């Protein structure tokens, strides 16, 4: 008689079973840092609206070891997010020119180039 | 035993079975259709067909030309009324598939593209890259999902036909998943269960091609036709028989022997054509039987290349270039690299002939009807016969469609002819007998023969004695051996006693089918004392149109060898002539 066997799958630790799942979870978890970092920006904006003293205090607070560490982690997470995001754009948005599809490498390359330009602008404006 | 009541039962959900099912559903949405298959429909072996399907569509082509190629290619053993019907319907069916979404390859203007194929005088083979059968099968399967009246019984193995009052009224089938037998009561049955190449060890055929459908009809008393005509495909990968489509040569691939000579010119298919400029019906574009025979000739002369997998010749496609190979023959490239470690873009590929297709099958008329009322057959398991003594590449896929549909229409005519009700009790008794046979097979514990052992002996026999060239004495040996194996089969042992998904049982049943078919092949071959198409005898080297312009019909006997009968070939327009494959001369 039929008695199909369903293999158990842990709802909370499934992603430990394969490297590709770990890579995926790492990518997903970047959002927590981006979330937190964006709130930091909102906080900075508040301090900015409160005048120079408040803003300087904010920058001061950033300089605490915790602040530095936080920024560092966010930076790493953000870079991981960017690369994982750009690498899959050709899948989500393929471009067909005439008969052929534009090779994925070119689309990814264009994104990286644009990323470099955008970063440069931000750095010039910020620094 | 559970009884499934239906109007029409179809055994087999490959190209032919699916086409029949759709035709039934379209003809009358109220019909109950049971589509029974031992594998999920898209696993059927139609998926392996690469090259394409022939049908007249371009303005430089004509029905007369397709007719001439097919009849000549079949060495005049084809029934010409069937061929006429076939070529008329072919373009309609291929267009119909296009309307159902089949991704046929296209010309720049958006019309369907055609490619050259062996034995065809004009480019007329519709193709979907080199996955034509795959796309046809999936298009049909997916289209069939539109029709709620098609009730599928996937992974059901048909075991016996139910015949009562002289007509076929259903079948029994084993639900593989549960091991339960089911009785299907139907007013008509269509068999579309595919070929039986697996009776040979070296074949392009998949594991499921075990001649079940042929054996079902045969055992139910309807004869098999022309079973001795077994097609070798000239270009198989030498290690595992994977097919490299004829499209390789259609696109311009050439064959060399070990000295780099285009040896086909030495076998009446020359003169040599320039590389990269294939000429239709010449050299590499000759028909399969001739090419496979030429290989045998080269092997006898010692001109073949020896490889770890036996003697080979070389198929060279390098001059086609990477771009064309990737566009037109992507699967071929993938298969060569994956399974042989050789890239056709960079090096010639060793190949050798491989068992590919059975021209013979269940004897049907042009209506796809068998001699048993209520039983119809289509596809590779049937023999109409349009393929005669040698099928032209790309005629088979079209045949599935044309005669799949034809079988459906004939089945409807049959059930509308006012049939009396079936005798439930008599059918049930037959079904029970069938169930008893299966459970006896399963429960037998004292057998001394193994499935694998008998199967190997059968394959070896077929390979050594019923190959490309045959002799009377070898065929006599083969007949004796197969008949012996059929006796020994009764003493088979089954180790697996589980009901759920018992593949041991399936293999035992399949072996039974193959042995029955193999006997029809060997007996038919022994008695056909001539050389015609794929049946070449070293002791009777000429075609004998006086005595043997006839179909072989073999009739089943449970214990003895089959009774052989002959039936005249239907000739309408074309008298037997010379098969000429040296078109470049003109």
């Amino acid at each position, binding site marked *: 008689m*039929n*008695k*199909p*066997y*369903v*293999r158990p*799958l842990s*709802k909370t630790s*499934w992603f430990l079973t*394969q490297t*590709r799942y770990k890579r995926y979870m790492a990518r997903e978890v970047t959002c927590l840092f981006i979330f937190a970092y964006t709130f930091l920006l909102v906080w900075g904006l508040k301090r900015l609206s409160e005048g120079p003293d408040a803003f300087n205090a904010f920058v001061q607070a950033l300089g605490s070891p915790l602040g530095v560490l936080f920024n560092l982690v966010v930076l790493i997470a953000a870079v991981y997010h960017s690369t994982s995001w750009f690498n*899959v754009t*050709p*899948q989500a*948005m*393929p471009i*067909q020119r005439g*008969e052929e*599809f534009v090779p994925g490498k070119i689309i990814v390359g264009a994104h990286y180039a644009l990323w470099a330009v955008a970063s440069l602008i931000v750095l010039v404006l910020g620094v | 035993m559970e009884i499934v009541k239906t109007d029409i039962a179809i055994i087999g959900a490959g190209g032919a079975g699916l086409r029949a099912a759709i035709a039934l559903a379209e003809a009358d949405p109220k019909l109950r259709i049971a589509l029974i298959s031992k*594998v999920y429909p*898209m*696993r*059927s*072996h139609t*998926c*392996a067909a690469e090259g394409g399907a022939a049908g007249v569509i371009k303005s430089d082509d004509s029905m007369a030309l397709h007719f001439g190629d097919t009849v000549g290619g079949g060495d005049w053993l084809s029934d010409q009324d069937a061929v006429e019907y076939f070529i008329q319907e072919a373009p309609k069916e291929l*267009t*119909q598939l*296009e309307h*159902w*979404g089949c*991704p046929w*390859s*296209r*010309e*720049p*203007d958006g*019309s369907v593209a055609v490619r050259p194929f062996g034995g065809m005088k004009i480019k007329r083979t519709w193709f979907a890259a080199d996955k034509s059968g*795959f796309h046809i099968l999936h298009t049909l399967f*997916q*289209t069939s*999902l*539109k029709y709620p009246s098609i009730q599928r019984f*996937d992974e059901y193995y048909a075991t016996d036909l139910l015949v009562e009052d002289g007509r076929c009224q259903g079948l029994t089938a084993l639900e593989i*998943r549960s091991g339960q037998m089911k009785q299907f009561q139907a007013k008509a049955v269509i068999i579309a269960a595919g070929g039986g190449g697996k009776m040979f060890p070296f074949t392009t055929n998949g594991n*499921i091609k075990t001649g079940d459908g042929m054996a079902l009809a045969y055992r139910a008393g309807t004869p098999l036709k022309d079973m001795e005509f077994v097609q070798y495909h000239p270009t198989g990968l030498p*290690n*595992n028989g994977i097919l490299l489509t004829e499209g390789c040569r259609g696109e311009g691939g050439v064959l060399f022997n070990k000295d780099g000579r285009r040896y086909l010119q030495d076998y009446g298919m020359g003169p040599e054509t320039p590389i990269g400029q294939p000429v239709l019906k010449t050299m590499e574009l000759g028909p399969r039987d001739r090419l496979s025979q030429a290989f045998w000739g080269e092997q006898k002369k010692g001109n073949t290349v020896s490889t770890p997998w036996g003697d080979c010749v070389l198929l060279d496609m390098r001059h086609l270039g990477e771009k064309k190979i990737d566009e037109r023959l992507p699967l071929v490239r993938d298969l060569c690299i*994956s399974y042989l470690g050789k890239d056709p873009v960079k090096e010639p590929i060793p190949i050798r002939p491989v068992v590919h297709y059975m021209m013979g099958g269940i004897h049907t008329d042009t209506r796809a009807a068998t001699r048993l009322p209520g039983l119809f057959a289509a596809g590779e398991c049937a023999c109409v016969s349009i393929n005669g003594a040698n099928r032209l590449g790309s005629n088979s896929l079209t045949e599935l469609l044309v005669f799949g549909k034809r079988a459906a229409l004939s089945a409807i005519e049959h059930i509308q002819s006012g049939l009396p009700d079936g005798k439930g009790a008599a059918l049930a008794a037959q079904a029970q007998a069938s169930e008893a046979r299966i459970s006896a097979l399963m429960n037998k514990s004292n057998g001394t023969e193994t*499935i*694998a052992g008998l199967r190997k002996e059968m394959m070896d026999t077929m390979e050594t004695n019923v190959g490309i060239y045959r002799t009377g004495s070898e065929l006599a040996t083969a007949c004796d051996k197969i008949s012996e194996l059929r006796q020994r089969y009764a003493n088979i042992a089954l*180790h*697996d006693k*589980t*009901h*759920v*998904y018992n*593949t*041991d049982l399936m*293999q035992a049943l399949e072996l039974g089918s193959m042995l029955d078919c193999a006997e029809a092949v060997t007996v038919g071959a022994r008695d056909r004392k001539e050389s015609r198409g794929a049946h070449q005898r070293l002791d009777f080297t000429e075609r004998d149109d006086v005595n043997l312009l006839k179909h072989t019909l073999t009739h089943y006997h449970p214990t003895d060898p089959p009774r052989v009968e002959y039936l005249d070939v239907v000739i309408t327009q074309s008298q037997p002539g010379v098969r000429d494959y040296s078109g470049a001369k003109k």
Partner: protein
Amino acid sequence: MSERQIQLEVLRYNPETDSEPRYQTYSVPCMNEWVVLDALNYVKEHLDPTLSYRWSCHMAVCGSCGMMINGEPKLACKAFIHEYTDQIRVDPMANFPIERDLVTSVEDFIAKLASVKPYLIPKEDKPISAGEFKQTPAELKKFKQYTLCINCMLCYAACPQYGLVPEFLGPAAISMAHRYNQDSRDGGRDQRQEVIATDTGVWECSFVGACSEVCPKHVDPAGALQQVKVASTIDWYKEHLMPWMKK
């Protein structure tokens, strides 16, 4: 043609005698050019006729021999022995119930495939006698890749979201809907959206991408699903922010 002795560790499950699956190891002399399927066939012929698994074509086109080989979803007929060490573990496809040994129940997938209307719903009616629909090579290329799916279900075995939420329509079914949506002859997208643009349709996918990594035919279902998301999102914004654009 060298020979190697391989330890083939196979997950066995007999529903009539076992309460749960167990591994059984077979020692198989393998030719180096073999695939794992050849090794299984060796076991079936010479060592243990009771081992059950599906296969047919032996050329990676029928889609029946999907299984987990060393934990990775693979076609057994395209898993080359020479790419493995002498110890190979074979499991039935993940995320599907085991019917017996390496045979899984796949009804769920078949039903899902059927549910997305995977057939041409023509834009315009055209009798057969009027000939074929025209379609340029560029229009063909637009969807060709998605027609290559052999329904092997390896993508389902790889997709954790399908494992976690069995109602998910899954990669191959949605890719097949996308295939028809992208076909220049088709006009059935609205009907298919009703099925695929749902919570258990494309929106259950979180773009893990495993499906495309394991797909033996390079269908790239992950890409198809993201494209469906983009298109569905554009639909939504058009419908709600620009209601006048509605047909």
